[in-house]
Protein backbone atom coordinates (compact mmCIF):
# COMPACT_ATOMS: atom_id res chain seq x y z
CA UNK A 1 0.00 0.00 0.00
CA UNK A 2 1.11 3.48 -0.57
CA UNK A 3 1.62 5.41 2.57
CA UNK A 4 3.43 8.18 0.85
CA UNK A 5 1.88 11.07 2.61
CA UNK A 6 1.18 9.47 5.92
CA UNK A 7 4.66 10.82 6.52
CA UNK A 8 5.52 14.42 7.09
CA UNK A 9 4.62 16.69 4.23
CA UNK A 10 7.84 18.58 4.63
CA UNK A 11 8.61 20.92 1.79
CA UNK A 12 11.18 18.88 -0.03
CA UNK A 13 14.16 20.99 -0.88
CA UNK A 14 16.01 19.41 -3.72
CA UNK A 15 18.45 22.17 -4.49
CA UNK A 16 20.48 22.52 -7.65
CA UNK A 17 18.66 19.85 -9.63
CA UNK A 18 17.45 21.94 -12.53
CA UNK A 19 19.63 20.21 -15.10
CA UNK A 20 17.83 19.55 -18.34
CA UNK A 21 17.33 15.92 -19.22
CA UNK A 22 17.72 14.28 -22.57
CA UNK A 23 14.21 14.25 -24.05
CA UNK A 24 12.40 11.12 -25.19
CA UNK A 25 12.39 12.40 -28.79
CA UNK A 26 16.16 12.98 -28.71
CA UNK A 27 16.73 9.53 -27.29
CA UNK A 28 14.64 7.90 -29.96
CA UNK A 29 16.37 9.81 -32.78
CA UNK A 30 19.74 8.92 -31.27
CA UNK A 31 18.76 5.28 -31.35
CA UNK A 32 17.46 5.56 -34.93
CA UNK A 33 20.68 7.26 -36.06
CA UNK A 34 22.82 4.55 -34.50
CA UNK A 35 20.88 1.96 -36.50
CA UNK A 36 20.93 3.87 -39.78
CA UNK A 37 22.30 2.12 -42.84
CA UNK A 38 22.90 4.67 -45.56
CA UNK A 39 24.89 2.70 -48.11
CA UNK A 40 26.96 4.43 -50.74
CA UNK A 41 24.18 6.48 -52.32
CA UNK A 42 23.17 8.51 -49.28
CA UNK A 43 24.73 10.83 -46.75
CA UNK A 44 23.54 13.14 -44.01
CA UNK A 45 24.51 16.65 -43.04
CA UNK A 46 23.88 18.22 -39.63
CA UNK A 47 24.10 22.03 -39.84
CA UNK A 48 24.34 22.04 -36.04
CA UNK A 49 25.72 18.70 -34.85
CA UNK A 50 24.28 19.28 -31.36
CA UNK A 51 20.79 19.41 -32.83
CA UNK A 52 20.05 15.92 -34.13
CA UNK A 53 16.39 16.75 -34.77
CA UNK A 54 17.20 18.81 -37.88
CA UNK A 55 19.36 17.56 -40.70
CA UNK A 56 19.58 17.09 -44.46
CA UNK A 57 19.74 13.82 -46.30
CA UNK A 58 21.39 13.68 -49.71
CA UNK A 59 20.47 10.91 -52.11
CA UNK A 60 22.53 10.15 -55.22
CA UNK A 61 20.70 7.35 -57.05
CA UNK A 62 23.06 4.98 -58.86
CA UNK A 63 20.38 3.53 -61.12
CA UNK A 64 17.00 4.38 -62.59
CA UNK A 65 15.62 7.57 -64.15
CA UNK A 66 17.38 9.78 -61.64
CA UNK A 67 20.87 8.28 -61.84
CA UNK A 68 23.57 10.92 -61.56
CA UNK A 69 21.44 13.44 -59.69
CA UNK A 70 22.04 14.81 -56.21
CA UNK A 71 18.83 15.30 -54.24
CA UNK A 72 18.53 17.02 -50.88
CA UNK A 73 15.82 16.51 -48.27
CA UNK A 74 15.31 18.49 -45.10
CA UNK A 75 14.33 16.43 -42.07
CA UNK A 76 12.69 18.26 -39.23
CA UNK A 77 11.63 16.25 -36.20
CA UNK A 78 9.58 17.67 -33.35
CA UNK A 79 9.48 16.79 -29.65
CA UNK A 80 6.41 14.66 -30.28
CA UNK A 81 8.43 12.15 -32.33
CA UNK A 82 7.80 9.21 -32.73
CA UNK A 83 4.11 9.91 -32.21
CA UNK A 84 4.36 12.46 -35.01
CA UNK A 85 6.25 11.51 -38.18
CA UNK A 86 9.35 13.47 -39.22
CA UNK A 87 8.62 16.37 -41.58
CA UNK A 88 10.49 15.78 -44.82
CA UNK A 89 10.78 18.22 -47.72
CA UNK A 90 12.83 18.24 -50.89
CA UNK A 91 14.83 21.47 -50.98
CA UNK A 92 15.15 21.56 -54.78
CA UNK A 93 12.58 22.07 -57.49
CA UNK A 94 12.56 18.70 -59.26
CA UNK A 95 10.43 16.84 -61.80
CA UNK A 96 9.02 13.82 -60.01
CA UNK A 97 5.47 12.36 -59.97
CA UNK A 98 5.46 12.07 -56.17
CA UNK A 99 7.12 15.37 -55.28
CA UNK A 100 5.50 18.75 -55.98
CA UNK A 101 7.08 22.11 -56.85
CA UNK A 102 7.13 23.10 -53.16
CA UNK A 103 9.09 19.99 -52.25
CA UNK A 104 6.20 18.15 -50.58
CA UNK A 105 6.70 14.41 -50.78
CA UNK A 106 3.90 11.88 -51.20
CA UNK A 107 5.16 8.91 -49.26
CA UNK A 108 2.56 6.96 -47.29
CA UNK A 109 4.70 6.45 -44.17
CA UNK A 110 5.30 10.20 -43.89
CA UNK A 111 1.60 10.80 -43.37
CA UNK A 112 -1.30 8.40 -43.32
CA UNK A 113 0.64 5.22 -42.61
CA UNK A 114 3.12 6.57 -40.05
CA UNK A 115 3.37 4.51 -36.85
CA UNK A 116 5.64 5.05 -33.86
CA UNK A 117 7.26 1.64 -34.50
CA UNK A 118 8.63 2.91 -37.82
CA UNK A 119 12.04 4.53 -37.70
CA UNK A 120 14.15 6.98 -39.69
CA UNK A 121 15.65 4.11 -41.66
CA UNK A 122 12.19 3.18 -42.98
CA UNK A 123 11.63 6.77 -44.15
CA UNK A 124 15.03 6.94 -45.79
CA UNK A 125 14.53 3.64 -47.60
CA UNK A 126 11.13 4.94 -48.74
CA UNK A 127 12.67 8.09 -50.19
CA UNK A 128 15.36 6.12 -51.95
CA UNK A 129 12.68 3.89 -53.44
CA UNK A 130 10.81 6.89 -54.87
CA UNK A 131 13.82 7.60 -57.08
CA UNK A 132 14.16 4.01 -58.22
CA UNK A 133 10.44 3.48 -58.81
CA UNK A 134 8.50 6.71 -59.22
CA UNK A 135 4.88 5.87 -58.57
CA UNK A 136 2.41 7.17 -61.17
CA UNK A 137 -0.68 6.05 -59.29
CA UNK A 138 -0.15 8.41 -56.30
CA UNK A 139 0.74 11.64 -58.06
CA UNK A 140 1.60 14.98 -56.48
CA UNK A 141 2.87 16.27 -59.81
CA UNK A 142 0.00 15.18 -62.03
CA UNK A 143 1.62 16.15 -65.34
CA UNK A 144 4.73 14.15 -64.58
CA UNK A 145 2.61 11.15 -63.54
CA UNK A 146 0.58 11.30 -66.76
CA UNK A 147 3.75 11.29 -68.83
CA UNK A 148 5.23 8.42 -66.84
CA UNK A 149 2.05 6.42 -67.39
CA UNK A 150 1.70 7.11 -71.12
CA UNK A 151 5.25 7.22 -72.37
CA UNK A 152 8.25 6.14 -70.33
CA UNK A 153 10.71 7.41 -72.97
CA UNK A 154 9.28 10.94 -72.86
CA UNK A 155 9.31 10.78 -69.09
CA UNK A 156 12.93 9.75 -69.11
CA UNK A 157 13.79 12.67 -71.43
CA UNK A 158 11.86 15.11 -69.24
CA UNK A 159 13.69 13.89 -66.16
CA UNK A 160 17.05 14.38 -67.86
CA UNK A 161 16.10 17.89 -69.05
CA UNK A 162 14.86 18.88 -65.60
CA UNK A 163 17.91 17.45 -63.89
CA UNK A 164 20.13 19.53 -66.14
CA UNK A 165 18.34 22.64 -64.90
CA UNK A 166 16.01 22.90 -67.87
CA UNK A 167 12.92 25.04 -68.28
CA UNK A 168 9.61 23.49 -69.27
CA UNK A 169 5.95 23.36 -68.15
CA UNK A 170 6.51 26.94 -67.03
CA UNK A 171 8.94 25.89 -64.32
CA UNK A 172 12.64 26.43 -63.91
CA UNK A 173 14.06 23.24 -62.47
CA UNK A 174 17.13 23.07 -60.28
CA UNK A 175 20.25 21.66 -61.79
CA UNK A 176 20.93 18.52 -59.76
CA UNK A 177 23.61 16.92 -61.93
CA UNK A 178 27.19 17.05 -60.75
Amino acid sequence: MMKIWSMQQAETAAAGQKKKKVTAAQLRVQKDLSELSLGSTMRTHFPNPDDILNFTLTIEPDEGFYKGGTFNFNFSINQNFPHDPPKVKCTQKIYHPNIDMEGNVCLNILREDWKPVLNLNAVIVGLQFLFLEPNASDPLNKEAAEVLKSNRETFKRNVRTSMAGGHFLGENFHRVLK
Partner: protein
Amino acid sequence: MARARWAYLDRVLNRTGPFTDPDWVPGEAPLESLLRAKILVIGAGGLGCEILKNLALSGFTDIHVIDMDTIDVSNLNRQFLFRQADVGKPKAEVAARFVEKRVRGVRITPHCCKIQDMDEDYYMKFSMVICGLDSIEARRWINATLVGMVDADDPDSLKPLVDGGTEGFKGQARVVLPTMTSCIECQLDMHAPRAAVPLCTLATIPRQPQHCIEWAQIIAWEEERKDDVLDTDDPEHVSWLYSKALERANEFNIPGVTYSMTQGVVKNIIPAIASTNAIIAASCCNEAFKICTSSNPFLGTPESTNYMMFSGDDSIYTYTFEHLKKDDCPVCGNLARPLEVNPEITLREFIESLAERPEAQLKKPTLRSEAKSLYYQSPPQLEEQTRPNLDKKLSELVSNGEEVAVSDPAFQIDFKFKLVFKS
Protein backbone atom coordinates in the same frame (compact mmCIF):
# COMPACT_ATOMS: atom_id res chain seq x y z
CA MET B 1 -15.28 22.25 10.59
CA ALA B 2 -18.83 21.03 10.25
CA ARG B 3 -18.59 17.44 9.06
CA ALA B 4 -22.34 17.08 8.58
CA ARG B 5 -22.00 18.16 4.99
CA TRP B 6 -19.58 15.27 4.40
CA ALA B 7 -21.76 12.55 5.88
CA TYR B 8 -21.82 10.61 2.64
CA LEU B 9 -18.02 10.69 2.43
CA ASP B 10 -17.54 9.69 6.03
CA ARG B 11 -19.54 6.56 5.38
CA VAL B 12 -16.64 5.43 3.16
CA LEU B 13 -13.91 6.72 5.45
CA ASN B 14 -15.28 5.58 8.80
CA ARG B 15 -15.87 1.92 8.11
CA THR B 16 -14.40 -0.93 6.19
CA GLY B 17 -16.04 -2.35 3.11
CA PRO B 18 -15.87 -5.71 1.35
CA PHE B 19 -12.80 -4.69 -0.66
CA THR B 20 -10.78 -2.67 1.84
CA ASP B 21 -7.28 -3.81 2.71
CA PRO B 22 -7.23 -5.81 5.99
CA ASP B 23 -4.54 -3.46 7.35
CA TRP B 24 -6.56 -0.34 6.68
CA VAL B 25 -7.78 1.57 9.71
CA PRO B 26 -10.92 3.62 9.14
CA GLY B 27 -11.50 6.96 10.84
CA GLU B 28 -9.06 9.76 11.52
CA ALA B 29 -6.06 8.69 9.44
CA PRO B 30 -7.70 8.51 6.01
CA LEU B 31 -9.60 11.73 6.68
CA GLU B 32 -6.35 13.37 7.68
CA SER B 33 -4.71 12.23 4.39
CA LEU B 34 -7.58 13.69 2.43
CA LEU B 35 -7.42 17.06 4.18
CA ARG B 36 -3.64 17.24 3.94
CA ALA B 37 -3.29 16.13 0.32
CA LYS B 38 -2.08 18.78 -2.09
CA ILE B 39 -3.36 18.01 -5.56
CA LEU B 40 -2.20 19.43 -8.88
CA VAL B 41 -4.70 19.53 -11.72
CA ILE B 42 -3.23 20.14 -15.18
CA GLY B 43 -5.74 21.61 -17.59
CA ALA B 44 -8.87 23.62 -16.79
CA GLY B 45 -10.79 22.78 -19.95
CA GLY B 46 -13.49 20.22 -20.61
CA LEU B 47 -12.00 17.59 -18.28
CA GLY B 48 -10.39 20.13 -15.95
CA CYS B 49 -13.68 21.83 -15.02
CA GLU B 50 -15.20 18.47 -14.12
CA ILE B 51 -12.10 17.38 -12.20
CA LEU B 52 -11.90 20.58 -10.14
CA LYS B 53 -15.58 20.39 -9.25
CA ASN B 54 -15.35 16.69 -8.37
CA LEU B 55 -12.24 17.09 -6.21
CA ALA B 56 -13.78 19.95 -4.28
CA LEU B 57 -16.96 17.95 -3.70
CA SER B 58 -14.91 14.90 -2.63
CA GLY B 59 -13.38 16.72 0.31
CA PHE B 60 -9.99 17.73 -1.09
CA THR B 61 -9.10 21.19 0.19
CA ASP B 62 -5.75 22.14 -1.31
CA ILE B 63 -5.75 22.17 -5.10
CA HIS B 64 -3.54 23.89 -7.66
CA VAL B 65 -4.53 24.20 -11.31
CA ILE B 66 -2.36 25.04 -14.33
CA ASP B 67 -3.74 26.09 -17.70
CA MET B 68 -2.19 28.40 -20.27
CA ASP B 69 -5.40 29.05 -22.22
CA THR B 70 -8.03 31.75 -22.17
CA ILE B 71 -11.76 31.10 -22.45
CA ASP B 72 -13.27 30.93 -25.93
CA VAL B 73 -16.97 31.31 -26.63
CA SER B 74 -17.03 27.76 -28.04
CA ASN B 75 -16.02 26.37 -24.61
CA LEU B 76 -19.20 27.50 -22.89
CA ASN B 77 -21.40 24.54 -23.85
CA ARG B 78 -19.46 22.10 -21.69
CA GLN B 79 -16.90 23.99 -19.60
CA PHE B 80 -19.56 24.83 -17.06
CA LEU B 81 -17.42 26.93 -14.74
CA PHE B 82 -17.30 29.66 -17.39
CA ARG B 83 -19.89 32.27 -18.38
CA GLN B 84 -20.31 34.55 -21.39
CA ALA B 85 -18.73 37.43 -19.47
CA ASP B 86 -15.59 35.34 -18.85
CA VAL B 87 -14.69 34.99 -22.54
CA GLY B 88 -11.08 36.07 -23.00
CA LYS B 89 -10.11 35.57 -19.35
CA PRO B 90 -7.63 32.88 -18.21
CA LYS B 91 -9.29 29.50 -17.66
CA ALA B 92 -7.31 28.55 -14.56
CA GLU B 93 -8.25 31.71 -12.70
CA VAL B 94 -11.95 31.74 -13.55
CA ALA B 95 -12.34 28.03 -12.79
CA ALA B 96 -10.55 28.37 -9.44
CA ARG B 97 -12.66 31.34 -8.31
CA PHE B 98 -15.91 29.67 -9.36
CA VAL B 99 -15.28 26.43 -7.45
CA GLU B 100 -13.97 28.29 -4.39
CA LYS B 101 -17.18 30.32 -4.31
CA ARG B 102 -19.45 27.32 -4.61
CA VAL B 103 -17.69 24.87 -2.30
CA ARG B 104 -16.83 26.31 1.10
CA GLY B 105 -13.45 25.46 2.56
CA VAL B 106 -11.60 24.57 -0.65
CA ARG B 107 -8.54 26.54 -1.68
CA ILE B 108 -7.65 26.53 -5.39
CA THR B 109 -4.46 28.21 -6.56
CA PRO B 110 -4.50 29.02 -10.29
CA HIS B 111 -1.45 29.32 -12.53
CA CYS B 112 -1.83 30.72 -16.04
CA CYS B 113 1.27 29.30 -17.60
CA LYS B 114 2.74 26.30 -19.37
CA ILE B 115 3.62 23.23 -17.33
CA GLN B 116 7.14 23.57 -18.72
CA ASP B 117 7.47 26.91 -16.90
CA MET B 118 7.43 25.15 -13.52
CA ASP B 119 10.44 23.31 -12.14
CA GLU B 120 10.90 20.11 -10.15
CA ASP B 121 10.79 21.97 -6.84
CA TYR B 122 7.29 23.05 -7.72
CA TYR B 123 6.05 19.57 -8.69
CA MET B 124 7.72 18.12 -5.61
CA LYS B 125 5.20 19.94 -3.39
CA PHE B 126 2.24 17.83 -4.51
CA SER B 127 0.88 14.52 -3.36
CA MET B 128 -0.53 13.66 -6.76
CA VAL B 129 -0.98 15.03 -10.27
CA ILE B 130 -4.23 14.73 -12.24
CA CYS B 131 -4.15 15.53 -15.96
CA GLY B 132 -7.07 16.62 -18.10
CA LEU B 133 -5.09 17.46 -21.22
CA ASP B 134 -5.65 17.35 -24.94
CA SER B 135 -1.98 17.27 -25.90
CA ILE B 136 0.21 14.21 -26.08
CA GLU B 137 3.30 16.38 -25.91
CA ALA B 138 2.28 17.87 -22.55
CA ARG B 139 1.47 14.42 -21.18
CA ARG B 140 4.87 13.11 -22.22
CA TRP B 141 6.55 16.10 -20.60
CA ILE B 142 4.88 15.80 -17.20
CA ASN B 143 5.36 12.02 -17.29
CA ALA B 144 9.10 12.31 -17.96
CA THR B 145 9.38 14.97 -15.26
CA LEU B 146 7.62 12.87 -12.63
CA VAL B 147 9.62 9.75 -13.53
CA GLY B 148 12.84 11.78 -13.33
CA MET B 149 11.93 13.10 -9.88
CA VAL B 150 11.68 9.70 -8.23
CA ASP B 151 14.40 9.22 -5.63
CA ALA B 152 14.54 5.68 -4.27
CA ASP B 153 15.47 6.95 -0.80
CA ASP B 154 12.57 9.37 -0.55
CA PRO B 155 9.06 7.89 -0.77
CA ASP B 156 7.65 11.43 -0.96
CA SER B 157 9.26 11.88 -4.34
CA LEU B 158 6.90 9.37 -5.95
CA LYS B 159 3.90 11.29 -7.27
CA PRO B 160 1.04 9.20 -8.67
CA LEU B 161 -0.12 10.50 -12.04
CA VAL B 162 -3.80 10.14 -12.88
CA ASP B 163 -4.43 10.84 -16.55
CA GLY B 164 -7.79 11.34 -18.21
CA GLY B 165 -8.36 11.78 -21.91
CA THR B 166 -11.35 11.99 -24.21
CA GLU B 167 -11.92 12.13 -27.91
CA GLY B 168 -15.55 12.33 -28.95
CA PHE B 169 -17.40 9.40 -27.38
CA LYS B 170 -14.19 7.58 -26.41
CA GLY B 171 -12.04 8.13 -23.39
CA GLN B 172 -9.56 6.65 -20.97
CA ALA B 173 -8.52 6.96 -17.34
CA ARG B 174 -5.20 5.59 -16.23
CA VAL B 175 -2.91 5.74 -13.25
CA VAL B 176 0.88 5.78 -13.40
CA LEU B 177 3.06 5.21 -10.36
CA PRO B 178 6.24 6.66 -11.85
CA THR B 179 9.03 4.04 -12.14
CA MET B 180 6.81 1.35 -10.58
CA THR B 181 4.18 0.84 -13.27
CA SER B 182 3.88 1.39 -17.02
CA CYS B 183 4.23 5.09 -17.84
CA ILE B 184 2.72 7.39 -20.47
CA GLU B 185 5.76 6.83 -22.70
CA CYS B 186 5.35 3.02 -22.40
CA GLN B 187 1.75 3.56 -23.52
CA LEU B 188 2.51 5.90 -26.40
CA ASP B 189 1.09 3.46 -28.93
CA MET B 190 -2.28 3.55 -27.16
CA HIS B 191 -2.95 6.99 -28.64
CA ALA B 192 -4.88 6.79 -31.87
CA PRO B 193 -2.83 8.33 -34.67
CA ARG B 194 -4.32 11.37 -36.30
CA ALA B 195 -6.32 10.11 -39.27
CA ALA B 196 -4.54 11.48 -42.32
CA VAL B 197 -5.44 11.50 -45.99
CA PRO B 198 -2.67 10.73 -48.50
CA LEU B 199 -1.08 13.89 -49.82
CA CYS B 200 -1.66 12.82 -53.40
CA THR B 201 -5.41 12.54 -52.79
CA LEU B 202 -5.42 16.12 -51.53
CA ALA B 203 -3.34 17.25 -54.49
CA THR B 204 -5.15 15.48 -57.30
CA ILE B 205 -8.49 13.85 -56.55
CA PRO B 206 -10.21 15.42 -53.53
CA ARG B 207 -13.46 13.60 -52.73
CA GLN B 208 -14.64 15.31 -49.57
CA PRO B 209 -14.97 18.94 -48.46
CA GLN B 210 -12.35 18.22 -45.77
CA HIS B 211 -9.86 17.28 -48.48
CA CYS B 212 -10.26 20.73 -50.05
CA ILE B 213 -9.64 22.42 -46.71
CA GLU B 214 -6.53 20.36 -46.01
CA TRP B 215 -5.32 21.14 -49.52
CA ALA B 216 -5.73 24.87 -48.82
CA GLN B 217 -3.82 24.48 -45.55
CA ILE B 218 -0.96 22.30 -46.75
CA ILE B 219 -0.49 23.14 -50.39
CA ALA B 220 -2.12 26.50 -51.24
CA TRP B 221 -0.76 28.24 -48.13
CA GLU B 222 2.76 27.02 -48.81
CA GLU B 223 2.56 28.16 -52.42
CA GLU B 224 1.10 31.59 -51.87
CA ARG B 225 1.82 32.68 -48.32
CA LYS B 226 4.97 30.80 -47.46
CA ASP B 227 6.41 33.69 -45.47
CA ASP B 228 3.42 34.03 -43.10
CA VAL B 229 3.35 31.53 -40.27
CA LEU B 230 -0.12 30.00 -40.31
CA ASP B 231 -1.97 30.88 -37.10
CA THR B 232 -5.15 28.82 -36.85
CA ASP B 233 -6.49 31.27 -34.24
CA ASP B 234 -6.21 34.22 -36.64
CA PRO B 235 -9.62 34.81 -38.30
CA GLU B 236 -7.98 36.38 -41.35
CA HIS B 237 -5.89 33.24 -41.91
CA VAL B 238 -8.87 30.93 -41.47
CA SER B 239 -10.99 33.07 -43.82
CA TRP B 240 -8.27 32.90 -46.44
CA LEU B 241 -8.11 29.11 -46.16
CA TYR B 242 -11.90 28.96 -46.30
CA SER B 243 -12.10 30.93 -49.55
CA LYS B 244 -9.31 28.84 -51.11
CA ALA B 245 -10.99 25.62 -50.06
CA LEU B 246 -14.32 26.82 -51.40
CA GLU B 247 -12.78 27.65 -54.78
CA ARG B 248 -11.26 24.21 -55.00
CA ALA B 249 -14.45 22.50 -53.89
CA ASN B 250 -16.38 24.31 -56.64
CA GLU B 251 -13.81 23.22 -59.18
CA PHE B 252 -14.35 19.57 -58.21
CA ASN B 253 -18.10 19.92 -57.59
CA ILE B 254 -17.82 19.03 -53.91
CA PRO B 255 -20.50 20.60 -51.73
CA GLY B 256 -20.27 21.25 -48.01
CA VAL B 257 -17.24 23.48 -47.31
CA THR B 258 -18.18 25.94 -44.57
CA TYR B 259 -16.26 28.38 -42.39
CA SER B 260 -16.84 26.36 -39.24
CA MET B 261 -15.77 23.15 -40.99
CA THR B 262 -12.60 24.96 -42.06
CA GLN B 263 -11.96 25.95 -38.46
CA GLY B 264 -12.58 22.38 -37.33
CA VAL B 265 -10.23 20.81 -39.88
CA VAL B 266 -7.32 23.24 -39.51
CA LYS B 267 -7.42 23.16 -35.70
CA ASN B 268 -7.99 19.39 -35.76
CA ILE B 269 -11.07 19.75 -33.60
CA ILE B 270 -12.85 16.56 -32.67
CA PRO B 271 -16.22 17.49 -31.22
CA ALA B 272 -15.96 17.23 -27.45
CA ILE B 273 -18.80 15.38 -25.74
CA ALA B 274 -19.76 16.72 -22.32
CA SER B 275 -20.93 13.34 -21.03
CA THR B 276 -17.66 11.59 -22.00
CA ASN B 277 -15.73 14.26 -20.09
CA ALA B 278 -18.00 13.77 -17.08
CA ILE B 279 -17.50 9.99 -17.07
CA ILE B 280 -13.73 10.14 -17.46
CA ALA B 281 -13.30 12.94 -14.91
CA ALA B 282 -15.44 11.02 -12.43
CA SER B 283 -13.26 7.95 -12.87
CA CYS B 284 -10.06 10.00 -12.41
CA CYS B 285 -11.32 11.66 -9.24
CA ASN B 286 -12.63 8.41 -7.84
CA GLU B 287 -9.15 6.89 -8.27
CA ALA B 288 -7.50 9.98 -6.77
CA PHE B 289 -9.76 9.70 -3.73
CA LYS B 290 -8.98 6.00 -3.27
CA ILE B 291 -5.23 6.48 -3.73
CA CYS B 292 -5.24 9.31 -1.23
CA THR B 293 -7.31 7.64 1.48
CA SER B 294 -6.42 3.97 0.79
CA SER B 295 -10.10 3.34 1.45
CA ASN B 296 -10.46 0.92 -1.46
CA PRO B 297 -8.29 -0.80 -4.06
CA PHE B 298 -7.33 1.66 -6.76
CA LEU B 299 -6.47 1.56 -10.43
CA GLY B 300 -2.71 1.45 -10.88
CA THR B 301 -1.85 -0.78 -7.92
CA PRO B 302 1.34 -2.57 -9.08
CA GLU B 303 0.56 -5.91 -10.74
CA SER B 304 -3.09 -5.11 -11.10
CA THR B 305 -4.95 -3.09 -13.72
CA ASN B 306 -3.87 0.46 -14.54
CA TYR B 307 -5.81 1.46 -17.64
CA MET B 308 -9.56 1.92 -18.06
CA MET B 309 -10.85 2.55 -21.56
CA PHE B 310 -14.35 3.74 -22.26
CA SER B 311 -16.24 3.80 -25.50
CA GLY B 312 -19.68 5.30 -25.92
CA ASP B 313 -19.60 5.08 -29.72
CA ASP B 314 -21.93 2.13 -29.94
CA SER B 315 -23.92 1.75 -26.71
CA ILE B 316 -21.51 1.70 -23.75
CA TYR B 317 -18.41 -0.38 -23.27
CA THR B 318 -15.54 -0.27 -20.83
CA TYR B 319 -12.57 -2.51 -20.36
CA THR B 320 -9.96 -2.30 -17.66
CA PHE B 321 -6.58 -3.97 -18.05
CA GLU B 322 -2.95 -3.90 -17.05
CA HIS B 323 -0.67 -2.15 -19.51
CA LEU B 324 2.77 -3.61 -18.88
CA LYS B 325 5.88 -1.56 -18.30
CA LYS B 326 8.28 -1.62 -21.25
CA ASP B 327 11.85 -2.59 -20.51
CA ASP B 328 13.06 -0.44 -23.38
CA CYS B 329 10.92 2.58 -22.51
CA PRO B 330 13.08 5.66 -23.12
CA VAL B 331 11.64 7.36 -20.03
CA CYS B 332 11.19 4.72 -17.32
CA GLY B 333 13.07 1.75 -18.83
CA ASN B 334 16.44 2.63 -17.43
CA LEU B 335 16.70 5.42 -14.91
CA ALA B 336 19.68 7.71 -14.71
CA ARG B 337 22.30 6.26 -12.39
CA PRO B 338 24.76 8.53 -10.65
CA LEU B 339 28.27 7.87 -11.91
CA GLU B 340 31.33 9.38 -10.30
CA VAL B 341 33.82 10.60 -12.86
CA ASN B 342 37.04 12.53 -12.88
CA PRO B 343 36.20 15.74 -14.81
CA GLU B 344 39.77 15.90 -16.11
CA ILE B 345 39.63 12.71 -18.21
CA THR B 346 38.84 12.98 -21.90
CA LEU B 347 35.60 11.85 -23.48
CA ARG B 348 37.58 9.06 -25.17
CA GLU B 349 38.79 7.78 -21.81
CA PHE B 350 35.26 8.01 -20.45
CA ILE B 351 33.89 5.94 -23.35
CA GLU B 352 36.61 3.34 -22.83
CA SER B 353 35.67 3.12 -19.17
CA LEU B 354 32.05 2.48 -20.18
CA ALA B 355 33.17 -0.50 -22.21
CA GLU B 356 34.78 -1.95 -19.09
CA ARG B 357 31.91 -1.37 -16.67
CA PRO B 358 30.41 -4.78 -16.02
CA GLU B 359 26.79 -3.59 -16.12
CA ALA B 360 27.28 -1.75 -19.39
CA GLN B 361 29.96 -3.43 -21.53
CA LEU B 362 29.14 -1.20 -24.42
CA LYS B 363 30.71 -1.96 -27.76
CA LYS B 364 29.90 1.10 -29.86
CA PRO B 365 28.39 3.69 -27.55
CA THR B 366 26.78 6.86 -28.88
CA LEU B 367 26.13 9.54 -26.31
CA ARG B 368 24.62 12.96 -25.78
CA SER B 369 23.47 15.40 -23.13
CA GLU B 370 20.30 17.44 -23.55
CA ALA B 371 22.24 20.27 -25.16
CA LYS B 372 25.17 18.52 -26.84
CA SER B 373 25.84 15.64 -29.18
CA LEU B 374 28.92 14.26 -27.42
CA TYR B 375 29.89 11.44 -29.74
CA TYR B 376 27.91 9.67 -32.48
CA GLN B 377 29.21 6.46 -34.06
CA SER B 378 26.83 6.86 -36.97
CA PRO B 379 25.97 8.28 -39.48
CA PRO B 380 29.54 8.88 -40.76
CA GLN B 381 29.14 12.66 -41.20
CA LEU B 382 27.93 13.09 -37.64
CA GLU B 383 30.74 10.87 -36.40
CA GLU B 384 33.20 13.18 -38.14
CA GLN B 385 31.54 16.27 -36.69
CA THR B 386 31.56 14.94 -33.13
CA ARG B 387 34.98 13.26 -33.28
CA PRO B 388 36.86 16.36 -32.02
CA ASN B 389 34.94 16.01 -28.73
CA LEU B 390 36.78 12.75 -28.02
CA ASP B 391 39.92 14.60 -27.00
CA LYS B 392 38.14 17.20 -24.92
CA LYS B 393 37.94 16.94 -21.15
CA LEU B 394 34.58 15.96 -19.67
CA SER B 395 34.54 19.25 -17.78
CA GLU B 396 34.53 21.09 -21.11
CA LEU B 397 31.56 19.13 -22.42
CA VAL B 398 29.17 18.60 -19.51
CA SER B 399 28.50 20.25 -16.19
CA ASN B 400 28.60 18.57 -12.81
CA GLY B 401 25.42 16.54 -12.27
CA GLU B 402 24.34 16.64 -15.92
CA GLU B 403 22.61 13.64 -17.45
CA VAL B 404 24.04 11.83 -20.47
CA ALA B 405 22.14 9.23 -22.47
CA VAL B 406 24.09 6.36 -23.98
CA SER B 407 22.79 4.16 -26.80
CA ASP B 408 24.45 1.18 -28.33
CA PRO B 409 23.20 -0.90 -31.25
CA ALA B 410 24.02 -4.02 -29.22
CA PHE B 411 21.34 -3.12 -26.67
CA GLN B 412 17.62 -2.53 -26.99
CA ILE B 413 17.63 -0.19 -24.03
CA ASP B 414 19.42 3.09 -23.45
CA PHE B 415 21.57 3.85 -20.45
CA LYS B 416 21.43 7.12 -18.60
CA PHE B 417 24.11 8.36 -16.28
CA LYS B 418 24.20 11.41 -14.09
CA LEU B 419 27.84 12.46 -14.14
CA VAL B 420 28.98 13.52 -10.69
CA PHE B 421 32.41 15.16 -10.71
CA LYS B 422 34.97 13.82 -8.26
CA SER B 423 36.53 16.74 -6.49
